[in-house]
């Protein structure tokens, strides 16, 4: 009898160890766009209690890590996979349905790989990929050098802060249930013409980015900007000359030469990273143009406002970097930030904690506040780099 108990314990331990990263595939998500339009989405989340964000959570590993990603398909519809874009994994773990394996409803699929070169990568579903990627099943995957948090790669470049920018587009016609609920037979799936009207960076668009102080680049030090394009348009990234931009890597590999470019074209599936190192204090924006690759016309623009700051004022860089809407709020509180955050807390004026959410890395979060009493609250947003910012909010 005793030996049976021991065997059960070992089995449980094994299962826990296998879940280095858990990604839950869902097909019941929704996303509120900048003008209030709500679309249906597919996506990945790390917890059952989370609405899958578009994009999905950013996954971070260290060079040489032996990684297991457990993808749990709790969607009601299609099979799903994870393609580890750019990681050059073997065929079994490549996430292409007819060449690797598909994960059925309520099943788990384990993707195993050794984290290769430090750099910027993507992950996305490869089942009916033209549709599932547009639906939202994608995210960024970053590999850092082991033991050197603020280095691009071993013996590479030091930087003070890193920012990730993942671009995509939305064509709302592709998000109707008639399109999303496709056949289980993947041999001939019909999709509409692609005519996107929303142009996203980290899932946000247009005025959602007009935060003023969202991005802060220190003078006299490198900031490391990772750009990745999972959309179906090309991106022309235009950086002000005063940022002294150096293009240093692409697709997870250092470039043989450093390029002093202030404009970069990034096409679907590509990733580029740059260092910016301004020498003067100024405010401006990084412009992202979304270029139709058939007509070469720019059909959307995002502007990422930034300011430079003197390194001595480092703790003030987060001021104003979050956008809270509405405030006062009623049944929902929407928090958005260009800086990735990992947790929120809401306390009343007496310091009683009303809400505490430990989140996967995200750039926006919607809190259901229906049950909260009217009054003044203090919202604390905890950022990925360990800093936090508090703001006063009011419930009507």
């Amino acid at each position, binding site marked *: 009898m005793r030996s049976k108990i021991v065997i059960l314990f070992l089995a449980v331990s094994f299962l826990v160890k296998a879940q280095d990263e858990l990604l839950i595939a869902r097909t019941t998500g929704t996303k509120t766009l900048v003008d209030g339009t709500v679309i249906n989405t597919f996506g990945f989340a790390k917890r059952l209690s989370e609405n899958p964000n578009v994009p999905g959570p950013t996954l971070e590993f260290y060079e040489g890590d032996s990684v297991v990603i457990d993808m749990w398909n709790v969607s009601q519809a299609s099979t799903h996979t994870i*393609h580890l*874009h*750019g990681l*050059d*994994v*073997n*065929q079994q773990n*490549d996430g*292409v349905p007819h*060449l690797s394996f598909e994960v059925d409803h309520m099943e788990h699929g384990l993707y195993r790989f050794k984290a290769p070169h430090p750099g910027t990568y993507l992950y996305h579903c490869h089942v*009916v*990929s*033209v*549709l599932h*990627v*547009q639906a939202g099943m994608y995210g960024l995957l970053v590999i850092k050098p082991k033991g050197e948090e603020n280095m691009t790669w071993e013996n590479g470049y030091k930087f003070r802060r890193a920012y990730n920018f993942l671009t995509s587009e939305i064509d709302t016609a592709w998000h109707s249930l008639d399109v999303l609920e496709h056949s289980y037979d*993947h041999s*001939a*799936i*019909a*999709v*509409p*013409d*692609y005519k996107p009207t929303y142009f996203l960076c980290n899932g946000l668009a247009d005025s959602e980015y007009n935060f003023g102080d969202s991005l802060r680049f220190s003078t006299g030090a490198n900031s490391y900007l990772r750009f990745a394009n999972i959309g*179906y*348009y*090309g991106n022309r990234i235009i950086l002000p000359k005063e940022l002294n931009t150096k293009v240093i890597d*692409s*697709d*997870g*590999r250092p*470039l*043989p*030469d450093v*390029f002093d470019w202030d404009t970069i*074209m990034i*096409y*679907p*599936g*590509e*990733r580029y990273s740059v260092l910016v190192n301004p020498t003067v204090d100024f405010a401006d924006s990084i412009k992202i143009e979304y270029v139709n*690759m*058939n*007509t070469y*016309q720019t059909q959307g623009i995002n502007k990422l406002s930034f300011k430079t700051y003197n390194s001595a004022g480092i703790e003030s860089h987060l001021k104003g970097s979050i956008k809270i809407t509405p405030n006062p709020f009623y049944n929902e509180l929407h928090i958005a930030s260009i800086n990735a955050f990992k947790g929120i807390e809401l306390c009343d004026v007496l310091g009683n904690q009303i809400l505490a959410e430990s989140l996967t890395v995200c750039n926006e979060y919607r809190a259901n506040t229906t049950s909260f009493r009217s009054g003044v609250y203090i919202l604390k947003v905890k950022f990925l780099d360990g800093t936090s910012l508090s703001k006063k909010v009011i419930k009507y």
Partner: protein
Amino acid sequence: MVDSTEVTYKAFSSDTILGKNRQLFSVMLNDNVQFKFVNRDSIAHNVFIESWIEGINIPAFSTADTTIICNKTGVFSVEDIDENERYLGLSGSLVVSVNEPTYFYWNLKELQSSFSNLLDESMPINFNEYQPNYFMINGRSNPDIGLDSLAKIRGKVGDTLRLVIHNGGNSVHSLHFHGYHFKIISSNLKPFAIGWEKDTYAVLAGENVVVEIVPDKPGEYPVHDHNLVATTANNIYPNGMFTTLVITP
């Protein structure tokens, strides 16, 4: 097309069999090459050979001759000067090699069937409204690309595989390789990228690029346009610009 739709298409070939998958001419360095152009079309064509011939006129149902000494290696475009004729398919490559050519060849091409039909009726088209609905490599779409021995990449672990890519279309094609990074060996439009290691490379319209792959593991891995709309044919997935590499131990 892959779905049996008939679309107006023009092509040239180095032999008497015309076909969308035969627009490649391979010669050796310092070859003295005599071109005899035979025009079977009802209109005149004016052919451009990058680096050597700015334009040679070939009247309708007639012939023209020219000779070039291929004194430099590389990949060079062979195209009709007329934008519409080029769009209809008259765009290929001349490859000048030092040794016997051991490379694979992809001629990327997309088209919008309604544009092709308008041109067939001598009606105007407007590329500012271009929205192609077929996407091909060597004139074929998935799953037929693998039937072309020049396009289907097969090799062994450790082989040095070279792929010559010509974008004969009007759109940018952002090719993503699963399984392996590759090295850029040459490019006529992006020479700054020579030596870069990439897994995704955007081939510009009119670009000739040579990439080198040295597989480090066996398997079958897709290569496809990561503008995923280009993995469809007439709005049906997955019949577009998608094929696989097959690497044996």
